[in-house]
């Protein structure tokens, strides 16, 4: 019996744009039970579901969606959790439009199933129900121990998998909060800190030990961890900010996106002076870049009271690497996109404060090795855009600290740690790595996928 297709995604309730640019509360409010059941009923339950392959960790999408459609949210979350330990996070930040929803059969003719929104709904339901009790009972203790370096999605995934297999796990994190980019980079209005904390608390309840303020490569070396633990996993991410190398980049008022977002998210500068850390956000802010980081910075600037929040990107809208949903949200919020423009200098006043950026206009040439059309400067098209704050969000690489202090650890282009992509094994026996530190800046789910593979390999190594 052919099923009647419901062509459009069920809209998700959101804060109105005029309202949300005045606060840091979450933009999307989430489905109600009824909305979730209705949306789930759109799924065709395809005989050959292609969505599963579209998901980097292979969640059994049709099965969990079917449970939602039948109102069995509890079973739905169990199905997701078989594959994904951070569904509340992934449901919010995964670029679904280029993963599962890209290949969803319905998407060929109509709108794809809102898989991300359903994942989020199910995870939120489970969190509200569970009262923090662990969802899994760890296996019998193996007596083996693993040190996980870095508390981002890669490290948390490894920790979760291994503790469930009965190993003793300690996570060492440089900052005072666990979560990596999820806590210092991604703003509250996209991923509330409390949701992340609930996931971390789950891991703690399972027995994962967390050591914050612990910089491996400074507080203790990888080799020393190796002598105390049976294996080490390095998931230190790609936290080293790149700058543009243009004149004026050190003027007062020029931030790396990492500093800007860290002050605002980790240190809650938007609550200054109630919280102690300040941040400077002018009336005219330019954010350079086009990825999720740039989008987060520019939308944050708007919320901090910028009258003009510009996003300066050297390619066109089609090439924007940020999640489609966030680009859409940014447009609604009045972010002023300046496509095909690139800064060549930062201008300042006599006191050393930013007054503007000199921009050169670009056009698109032939595709480059990334497959995207290469931006080419248009001669004599320069002009100055008046701004008083500049945020540079043009990418980041792995922090060299671990590589510099770990003899025998092989690194490659841009300082990434060289790993076997199937196991995460590095050139050093007993040391595994994964996530952004091995790939350069990527996505949460890819970091988690790498963490899962590494955890399996570590388990094999320990057995």
């Amino acid at each position: 019996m052919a099923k009647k297709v419901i062509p459009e995604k069920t809209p998700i309730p959101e804060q109105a744009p005029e309202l949300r640019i005045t606060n840091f509360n979450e933009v999307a409010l989430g489905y109600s039970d009824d909305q979730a059941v209705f949306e789930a009923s759109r799924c065709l339950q395809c005989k050959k579901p292609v969505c599963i392959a579209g998901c980097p960790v292979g969640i059994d999408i049709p099965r969990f969606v079917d449970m939602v459609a039948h109102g069995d949210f509890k079973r739905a979350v169990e199905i997701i959790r078989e594959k994904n330990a951070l569904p509340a996070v992934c449901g919010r930040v995964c670029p679904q439009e280029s993963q599962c929803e890209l290949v969803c059969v319905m998407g060929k003719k109509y709108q794809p199933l809102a898989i991300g929104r359903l994942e989020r709904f199910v995870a939120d339901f489970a969190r509200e129900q569970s009262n923090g009790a662990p969802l899994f009972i760890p296996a019998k203790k193996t007596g083996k121990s693993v040190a996980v370096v870095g508390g981002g999605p890669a490290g948390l995934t490894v920790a979760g998998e291994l503790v469930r297999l009965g190993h003793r796990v300690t996570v060492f994190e440089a900052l005072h909060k666990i979560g990596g980019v999820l806590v210092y980079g991604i703003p509250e209005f996209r991923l509330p800190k409390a949701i992340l904390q609930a996931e971390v608390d789950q891991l703690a309840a399972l027995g994962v030990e967390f050591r914050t303020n612990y910089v491996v490569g400074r507080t203790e070396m990888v080799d020393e961890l190796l002598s105390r633990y049976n294996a080490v996993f390095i998931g230190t991410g790609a936290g080293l900010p790149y700058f543009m190398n243009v004149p004026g980049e050190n003027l007062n008022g020029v931030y790396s996106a990492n500093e800007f977002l860290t002050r605002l998210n980790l240190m809650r500068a938007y609550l200054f002076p109630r919280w102690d850390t300040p941040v400077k956000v002018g009336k005219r802010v330019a954010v350079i870049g086009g990825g999720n980081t740039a989008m987060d910075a520019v939308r944050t600037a708007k919320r901090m009271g910028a009258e003009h929040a510009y996003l300066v990107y050297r390619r066109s809208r089609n090439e924007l690497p940020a999640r489609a949903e966030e680009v859409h949200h940014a447009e609604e919020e009045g972010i002023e996109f300046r496509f095909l423009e690139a800064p060549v200098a930062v201008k300042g006043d006599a006191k050393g404060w930013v007054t503007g950026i000199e921009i050169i206009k670009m056009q698109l040439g032939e595709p480059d090795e990334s497959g995207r059309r290469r931006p080419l400067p248009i001669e004599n098209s320069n002009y100055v855009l008046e701004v008083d704050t500049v945020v540079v969000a043009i990418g980041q690489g792995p922090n060299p600290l671990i590589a510099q202090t770990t003899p025998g650890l092989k690194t490659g282009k841009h300082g990434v740690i060289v790993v076997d992509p199937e196991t995460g094994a590095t050139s050093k026996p007993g040391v595994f790595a994964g996530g952004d530190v091995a790939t350069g800046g990527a996505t949460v789910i890819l970091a988690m996928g790498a963490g899962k593979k590494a955890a399996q390999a570590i388990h094999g190594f320990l057995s």
Partner: protein
Amino acid sequence: MHKILSKQTLAPGIKRFEVIAPEIAQRRKAGQFVILRVHEEGERIPITIADANPAKGSITLIVQEVGMTTRLMGEKKAGEFLPDVCGPLGDPTHIENFGHCVCLAGGVGVAEIYPVVQALKTAGNRVTAIIGARSHDLLILENEMRQAANKLLVTTDDGSYGIHGLVIKPLQEMMNRGEKIDRVFCIGPVPMMRAVTELTRPTKIPTIVSLNPVMVDGTGMCGGCRVTVGGKIKFACVDGPDFDAHEVDFDELVRRQQMYRSEEKEALERYVKSLEEGETEKKSCQMAEIFQALMPSNAGKNSESFLDSKAN
């Protein structure tokens, strides 16, 4: 959580804390620092590790109250806790047997140069230390420094103790006498480090300064601590904090240090207002103020004339 074992006032507004941090105590080397927070909603601030007792698992921090966070730190009592102490951070000071080293420090900088002097001496150097303060009651660690260095000279700006003048005065005199100096280390307010830099520039005595830009994470992640050294961007928290003085762009450092001036003032004023006792006397950053007063904003360019007039 890091327990404060003891607290002691060394001079008005300068306090010494002994804090439990076993891993840091084990590993720290001269020139390294920690990043700490005083409370759960607090700022992350860098403080040099002045000393450590690995057996006891403790480190010593010496803090001068300049703004809100350091004042809040000053309020902490023995037996209380600091939520976060992260370290040891920064590249350790490069120590080898250079020969004769002169180590200069002013104000709370003395706390920062103390481990450097100890390490240099252990490495076989002859160390002349010159420490200064505005007046005698603000001088810290005199006995410790006398123990650590081969020779200690003390200066006070008001002449209330030791040599009357700034710390560069004895250095200038040593240079005038043609004394052999293999390396100079200087830690203190920027105007002081700058003056020393200009003094040793013509004779090219290798000179190391410890830079103090505003930091957030201290691990090379935010880029907020960037300084220009030899025309290149460096992150002071991972590439430093020590740098070749003759290559440093001090103008930029001074400028970037002032980025949050109005917010810092606002925070401090609110804090002071919140103290009902009306304890409003501002004991802030005396050394910096003196040097700033002596060296007006254009002083960077003609600090040689400043040296001439001040240190004959």
